[in-house]
């Protein structure tokens, strides 16, 4: 299945994301989830960025925090709300919010 998981926090409180099959998985970073793409923690980039072949981050949630779209890790594609709608309809068939 093509599943997209929305991540809205920096600290994940459970291991459920890591149980999901990686092949067709997508991760969509929203709200405080965008810090996975912009900030290293203790000098390391977030392990989350290795857990799915497709990773997106929401532009508005980067900019509202005073950061720039260019601050994100190269593995992450930045989309606005319109782009996110296309991702939802064209790239995946199931959605999960963490």
């Amino acid at each position, binding site marked *: 299945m093509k599943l997209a998981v929305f991540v809205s926090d920096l600290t994940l409180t459970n291991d459920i994301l890591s149980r999901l099959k990686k092949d067709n998985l997508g991760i969509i970073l929203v*709200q405080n989830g965008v810090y996975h793409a912009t900030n290293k923690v203790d000098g390391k980039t977030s392990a989350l960025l290795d857990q799915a072949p497709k990773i997106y981050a929401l532009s508005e949630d980067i900019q*509202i925090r005073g950061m720039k779209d260019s601050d994100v890790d190269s593995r992450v594609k930045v989309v606005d*709300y319109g782009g996110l709608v296309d991702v939802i*309809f064209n790239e995946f068939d199931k*959605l*999960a*919010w963490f």
Partner: protein
Amino acid sequence: MGTLTIGCFPGLVGSMAYDFSLKLAEAAVDKGHKVNIWFSGNATGSVKANQKHLKDYSTGEKYIKTLLEKGVEICTCEACTVARGVKKDEGIEGVQWNAMHWYLAKIHGSDRVLQIGGE
């Protein structure tokens, strides 16, 4: 064009999941998709009419009205809403009031479903 149904459960708070739901709904409807929104839990408090828009606080009313005008169907869980003391005639006009099966029925006809939990 497809149909997206969003279940929104968290309460009305600044820059968070509630706002996200409404903004995603608007972006989808602007692209020609059909969108349904189901409010349950604390999110149902947001269907109260006459929310005062202060710069320091989030409000949902203006946004809800815009979405209704654009053809988004919005329904609040009646039980959750009256449990919070909000009666139908105190609610925002155009928002539907129904039971949980409204949400399941909309899901039945949807291409994509995004259930957003949290308080």
